[in-house]
């Protein structure tokens, strides 16, 4: 076969290159620029090399925030993924209740993130909030604005409420795409419900669950809005996750150099962990 060698095709890619350059590459390079320089204002910059990176990587404050971030992300993954799959399994596969269930499930996803934060903040207030007051009435000493444990409990509860639906919807999509014949075949084999889950439903949901875990991992690693409205990182620094810490440094203290360095490290951590997740899950697929 004769192949036409022609470089005209590159022209058609140009608009995309320009667009990506403006909304991704250039802003990112600005951050890279800040991260290797020191400034004292007036747009005067001095070369700083890897100083900021060293400073961030050695700072205890960053280590603590990173540790809290990992703890938060793995906790919500461990809760949301199994819970989401469990809810998807109990949802009806056909009939008039399907749209009702789907809309109910989608509701938390449709609420603006800052509203979610504000809602849960008021809901959990120990003196006027329904949740806070009820817990106290039941004899628990609950106050999420003062006690770190309570703040974490509220934060995780909020995230589970907000995002489990995403896992549910993805898992449900995987479930309904399984042909009926699989279930019949399993029934004929005499397979127990757990075997059906283990050998049919789970393998068939694997691809969508991979996506669900990845999405939830990345999003939870970048959580900012709801958290900043709910606790603002407090009490003390107990719920200061990476994003909150970054905003404090960049906009609170206006330390552009360290903030830029931290942004890049933050970005690389997400990239690296996502890659690890994806490779691990896809490697299983190939075995």
């Amino acid at each position, binding site marked *: 076969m004769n192949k036409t060698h022609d470089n005209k095709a590159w022209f058609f890619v140009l608009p995309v290159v320009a667009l990506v350059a403006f909304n991704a590459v250039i802003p990112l390079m600005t951050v890279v620029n800040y991260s290797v320089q020191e400034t004292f204002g007036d747009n005067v910059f001095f070369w700083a090399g890897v100083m900021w990176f060293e400073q961030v990587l050695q700072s205890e404050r960053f280590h603590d925030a990173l540790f809290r971030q990992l703890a938060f992300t793995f906790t919500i993954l461990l809760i949301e993924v199994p819970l989401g799959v469990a809810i998807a399994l109990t949802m009806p596969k056909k009939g008039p209740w399907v749209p009702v269930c789907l809309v109910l499930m989608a509701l938390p996803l449709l609420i603006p993130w800052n509203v979610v934060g504000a809602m849960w903040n008021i809901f959990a207030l120990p003196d006027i909030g329904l949740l806070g007051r009820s817990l106290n009435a039941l004899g628990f000493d609950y106050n999420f604005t003062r006690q770190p444990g309570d703040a974490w409990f509220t934060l995780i509860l909020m995230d589970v409420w907000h995002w489990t639906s995403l896992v549910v919807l993805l898992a449900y999509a995987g479930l309904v795409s399984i042909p009926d*014949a699989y279930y019949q075949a399993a029934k004929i*084999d*005499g397979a127990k419900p757990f075997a059906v889950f283990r*050998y049919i439903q789970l393998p068939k949901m694997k691809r969508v669950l991979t996506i669900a875990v990845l999405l939830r991992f990345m999003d939870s690693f970048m959580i900012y809005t709801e958290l900043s409205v709910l606790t603002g990182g407090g009490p003390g620094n107990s719920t200061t996750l990476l994003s909150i810490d970054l905003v404090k440094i960049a906009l609170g203290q206006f330390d552009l150099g360290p903030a830029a360095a931290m942004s890049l490290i933050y970005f690389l951590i997400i990239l690296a962990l996502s890659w690890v997740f994806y490779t691990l899950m896809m490697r299983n697929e190939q075995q």
Partner: protein
Amino acid sequence: MSLELRGVGLRAGADIHIHPTDLVCEPGSFNILLGTTLAGKTTMMKLMAGLERPTAGTVWFGGQDVTGVSVRRRNVSMVYQQFINYPNMSVYENIASPLRVAKIDEAEIKRRVGTMAELLKLSPMLSRRPSELSGGQQQRTAMARALVKDADLVLLDEPLANLDFKLREELRDELPRLFADRDCIVVYATTEPVEALLFGGHTACLHEGRVTQFGPTAEVYRNPRDLVSAQVFSEPPINIASVTKAGSVFRFGQDTEFPASGAFAALADGAYTLGIRPHHVAPTPDGDNPVPVDGHVLVTELSGSESVIHFTVQGETWVSQSHGIHPFEVGTDQRLFADMSKALVFDGDGRRIEI
């Protein structure tokens, strides 16, 4: 053990899925459910297997009423049109899965899976996963799973429909051999009359949820009880001629008349429907009573040794299937000959009249 349906029917509200049906499948028999898509073949199989509970009648197996007995407690296996295997198990584990549920010991499982894999030519693929197999191998795996547990009733629901032509022919030839020395009842659903004729055994013609005829395959083919059975069991479709008999002639449409000779002479005057199989319509006058029919050619399909000509005659679409190459031009008017001595005669209600 024999399978017996006694007045088995299925309806959902006002919709009748299966009309009350009586059917007996003998032990060791090969039974074919023949019908077009949506005729109710799969539903009928589900009723036989116990995957669906009939709303009327009873299902008997080996002299016992098994209506409502869960499929888990019956010794049934089924192969589907889609290739259904456990996605993350190896071929070996897939074939072994029914035996594991039945708690058979490991050495016996190994022996039986080995035999089955040998029989279905899967031995080199035992450690692979279904997704790494071709369609034909996936379906062989599904069949091995169905056969390995020595079920009393094996249901095959269009198992060859999703395979390409070559593989289909290959598996089609192997199928009768697989069941030759088994005493299970096999029920095989298909849309293709050719498959029914190839497998022999017994055939049930199914049309809109009703078994129109059940009997030995050759018998059903040769002596359809009614027009619907003849239509279900004919590929290409059987040609239909609405005729009126007056005295010693049949009048067909406006301008065709032909003598009601031989066996037709005994028929009373009146309206009849004649069914003429495509291979009794040819471009040359053949047989005992060739009647010329003038038609308008719609499509011609020429294979190496055969011509299939679709044409319209008196408002009906007819098909002629004849030996040799007859390159009729599409859109022209042509004269063909129908051997009316081979025609099947049906009365006004579509019931067959034996002559």
